[in-house]
């Protein structure tokens, strides 16, 4: 696993109501890069460390941007699942980024650790086609259940398919 910290911590500018300008990233953004095998273990460890809440989970398709900067030792894959954990007690955020290959876009679910990821994982599946194994209800959430394709993938064209409703004859 690889750890990286980016962002600035210069928010401790003097607290004045005057004209002082200041940079505004509120905290250093802490990012972890576990492999797919370490993923659940790492998140479970973070939960025990005091990250009580999974604030957000989403997926990104890096098909058209393969050369993104990643720390050494992390091989870029097409998909990336990004989990934002929040610790209310330590007032701290941590981001977990997992690489998911296109040929086998499968990741274990976090539902057993954070039940709040239920809808978020369904959204990631619906829009990007990353399947979360062990999820109790891995179905589409925003699109109709007979929709074909996953629109937030980069190879899903924009405006390629006209407005589609169930039962209406489609172009395909």
């Amino acid at each position: 696993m690889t750890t990286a910290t980016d962002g600035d911590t210069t928010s401790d500018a003097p607290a004045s109501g005057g004209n002082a300008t200041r940079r505004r990233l509120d905290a250093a953004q802490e990012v972890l890069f576990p492999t797919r095998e370490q993923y659940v273990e790492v998140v479970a460890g973070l939960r025990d460390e005091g990250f009580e809440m999974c604030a957000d989970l989403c997926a990104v398709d890096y098909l058209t941007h393969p050369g993104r900067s990643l720390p050494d030792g992390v091989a870029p894959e097409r998909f990336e699942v990004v989990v934002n954990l929040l610790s209310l007690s330590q007032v701290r955020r941590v981001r977990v980024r997992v690489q998911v290959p296109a040929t086998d876009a499968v990741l274990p679910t976090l539902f057993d650790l954070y039940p709040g990821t239920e809808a978020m994982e369904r959204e990631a599946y619906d829009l990007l086609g990353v399947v979360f194994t062990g999820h109790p209800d891995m179905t589409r959430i925003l699109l109709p259940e007979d929709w074909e394709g996953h629109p937030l993938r980069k190879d899903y064209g924009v405006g390629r398919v006209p407005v589609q409703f169930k039962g209406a004859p489609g172009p395909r």
Partner: protein
Amino acid sequence: MTDTTDTGAADGVPHTDTVLPAPVSGATYDEATGTGTERGLIIETSEGAQELFPRKETEADELRREAGAVLRLPEGVVINADDIDIEQSDDETMIINMGPQHPSTHGVLRLMIELDGETVLRTKPVIGYLHTGMEKTAEELTYVQGSTNVTRMDYLSPLHNELVLSLAVEALLGIEMPARSDWIRMLMVELNRVSSHLMWMATNGMDHASTSMMIYGFREREMVLAFFEKTTGLRMNHNFIRPGGTAADLPDGWEDDVTVICDTVLPRLDEYDELLTGQPLFRQRSEGVGNLSAEEALALSLTGPLLRSTGIPWDLRRAMPYLRYDEVEFDVIVGTFGDNFDRYSIRLNEIRESIRIIRQIVEKMPAGDYRVQDKKVTPPPRGRIDESMEALIHHFKVFTEGFRVPEGEVYVATESPRGELGCYLVSDGSPKPFRMHIRGPSFVNLQALPLMMRGGLLADAVVACSSVDPVMGEVDR
């Protein structure tokens, strides 16, 4: 609703839909047996149904979730489906559809509710009726155009959406913002919180059958919207807060307008107190209804008034201050019991706190620029275009190509009236976002509905849904 203890077919409820059809037209599916292999086939071909199946067909996993046993269990404990009280047979329960067109669902939310008489057993929110692919759209728009898109997500607090996108873009750009733009943004966002909560007070009142509250809430909200119209040109979907500052400075005499709003709304909140807070009927309807515990709220990732109603003092304005929230005084309102009444009082008192913040902003508003003077990000003023060739070029570039944002990714969160509104932004160095994900608080908060409604009455389900305060534009995006 009339007495529905009979079987679903005989009670005459128009929305009754006791026997759900097989999720797709797969003719091989056998309704009577509901064998697993057939289900598996259907799920493969249809990429999953969103239906609430009759109880005998529901898998243990799903039952476990619907039964409210969503909470993390101690290590090593496995849930046995037999432990959950599911003794009711299909004959005695019925599944009804509430929505997507229903006045109490605050938009196009569809709730599939399984009822035993009038008692709610299972609830499944079905969403997506308002999905317009705004995250995909965002990838086709430049950063300059982006706020036009996001402002339409949560249409009751559009300025919060614009703010979170702008903060994310500015974090990636690494630019320093002038003080006045921060304070203008805070003023607008707090006014927006007032209008959003007033709107909620109105609709919540209506769900409690208090139609006068609806009229009052809309009346007060109208004052705030009038100020928005004066400042931004529009009542909603303002596109006022943009990456790099705001679209314009505040209009002349804004202090008086804002003070009039504060002076009018504040005493009217006391009238609401008289109308609702002290009302025995209202209290009986809302106290002890839709309970949530702190553990449940944390496990389900609930934020905003839902989380605070369980007694957790978590407000991003206080905990992780953005803009200049560390320079104003306000209280974080916290409940105790996590019921509907707590959520009502939290929102009512948050209006008071917002007004307190607004009064401080009026006093402290500094002079200066309302947007950053970085020619690459901010278009030049109109007057400069006639005089300067460079200004014309910059203007042209900003509005055609847009500005380039350094490669990187960032997650920024703000406290919207509904909870944590986050923006995860990935840039590949081009003028358009590579990926923009909005973490909508209502989308996540909706997960609490099955838990809040379970075991309650159908009439309380309407109120519980209202107290989550879902805005479907943000849920579906």
